[in-house]
């Protein structure tokens, strides 16, 4: 009985699995658990990539660590924008003002914006679905963080019930965003936008002036 059997999954590469099963039957298995997906946040800091199996948390953010704070920019986005001739001071300021999101930046083509969605902008359902697809092959567990910028009890209960129904053993952190932020000091004056005012919050229509 191996992990995929518990999930009633028939893996591809049947011959190789059969060979493994024969060997296990003949000699036994030294460890009871074989695979885990670790959070790897320190390693990610060092390697300059994103944690674990997570989508990028932002195209521009800082890591707060014991030894200080470090700015991290999404290198892939920079390459893409440079190739398109769009890596301009204006776009950089826009990204900063949008807290590392490129969704509202009209100068960028739609496919770029879609590709560089942040963890906050992706449907969490998709992250859970991906974790579920991996689960038959991960016998210990996976570090699955979920991201809700603006959690509500309704969203949380729906999300965690879906994760439970999908058969996931566990999830890890829930990350949320602060309700308001420190006013920025390094982007040009006069272009402050109140995030609460521009985010026409469909999930929060009673607080959106445009929706009232």
């Amino acid at each position, binding site marked *: 009985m191996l992990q995929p059997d518990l999930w009633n999954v028939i893996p591809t590469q049947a011959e190789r699995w059969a060979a493994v099963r024969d060997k296990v039957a003949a000699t036994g298995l030294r460890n009871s658990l074989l695979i885990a997906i670790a959070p790897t946040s320190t390693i990610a800091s060092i390697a300059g990539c994103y944690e674990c199996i997570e989508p990028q948390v932002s195209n521009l*953010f800082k890591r*707060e660590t014991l030894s200080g704070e470090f700015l991290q920019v999404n290198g892939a986005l920079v390459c893409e924008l440079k190739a398109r001739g769009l890596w301009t001071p204006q776009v950089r300021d826009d990204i900063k003002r949008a807290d590392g999101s490129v969704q509202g930046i009209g100068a960028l083509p739609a496919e770029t914006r879609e590709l560089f969605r942040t963890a906050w902008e992706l449907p969490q359902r998709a992250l859970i679905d991906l974790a579920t697809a991996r689960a038959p092959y991960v016998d210990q567990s996976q570090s699955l963080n979920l991201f809700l910028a603006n959690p509500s009890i309704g969203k949380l209960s729906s999300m965690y019930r879906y994760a439970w129904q999908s058969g996931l053993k566990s999830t890890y952190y829930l990350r949320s965003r602060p309700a308001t932020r420190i006013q920025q000091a390094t982007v040009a*004056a006069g272009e402050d936008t109140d995030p609460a005012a521009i985010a026409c919050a469909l999930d929060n229509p009673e607080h959106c002036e445009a929706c009232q």
Partner: protein
Amino acid sequence: MTAVTVPSDQRRALLDPGMDLTLRPMRYPHFYDRFRDAIKNTWTVEEVDLHADLKDLARLSAAEQHLVSRLVAFFATGDTIVANNLVLNLYQHVNSPEGRLFLSRQLYEEAVHVQFYLTLLDTYVPGEQARFAAFAAVENIPSIKRKADFCFRWIDSIFSLRELRTAEDRRRFLLNLVCFAACIEGLFFYGAFAYVYFLRSRGLLNGLASGTNWVFRDESMHMAFAFDVIETIRSEEPDLFDDELAAQVREMLAEAVECEAQFAEDLLVQGVSGLSLTDMREYLQHVADRRLVQLGVPPLYGSGNPFAFMELQDVQELSNFFERRVSAYQVGVTGEVSFDDDF
């Protein structure tokens, strides 16, 4: 003062004297939203670990220690002054119950800040006499006294006003509000913020920096609320905003920059490597320009931001829960349990 109940169809202005009690219909729902957002920012002083800073303090050069001790002395009394003005002046004249809800919340936050800076003082400064001296700084240290005098002058400027009857009264109120939002919270505190961030960019005093992060998130809210109040008044009584008021605002900001620049001179007198007085002055001018633009007044200086380390405060943060106290979250999540919400 007597309570006034006003029929909802009668158009009244925010600064009209009285004690409006009506929340439904709500005249200024945006004030109420800010109140609710502020509650999501709740934090407590106990969440900040300042003791880890002590070994950093011991490593600082004499010039840096001087800088930190002056900052601590400024912080010791700064928020109390703001809280006093809030109670003595702002609460009285912002005649909207939802606006007063925000101000009540702000008062609580100022109290938390006072507690934070008191804890900071008790942690950083071991001797009782030295602690007393920090509180006496507002009288004894000229660079701090000058800033405090500036604040007191504007508190006093409308202290005798019980009701804002005339346009002149209202302009005086506006100047007080601009002073506290743009000059004190928006410039003095932003100056202090830069020193803390400078130290943090070198990996020093992380405890102070985490607490400061929270304090400044709150201060940003206070400032945004005050600017919201000003914009509301502008939409209701555009005539108040004449050229003379604009000139007074520019003059006030210029004086605030001078106050803060002489404070910087005192802080950096022994020469802190990596933080020059010229850059600090330029930074203050840059911040002052931003405040002026936010107030719809032409900027004075046209200065840019010289501090690359300030970039770090403008982006979202990601902390490892095992290494640092995570400050990016919200509390007071509400709603009903449901299983078919979109997520």
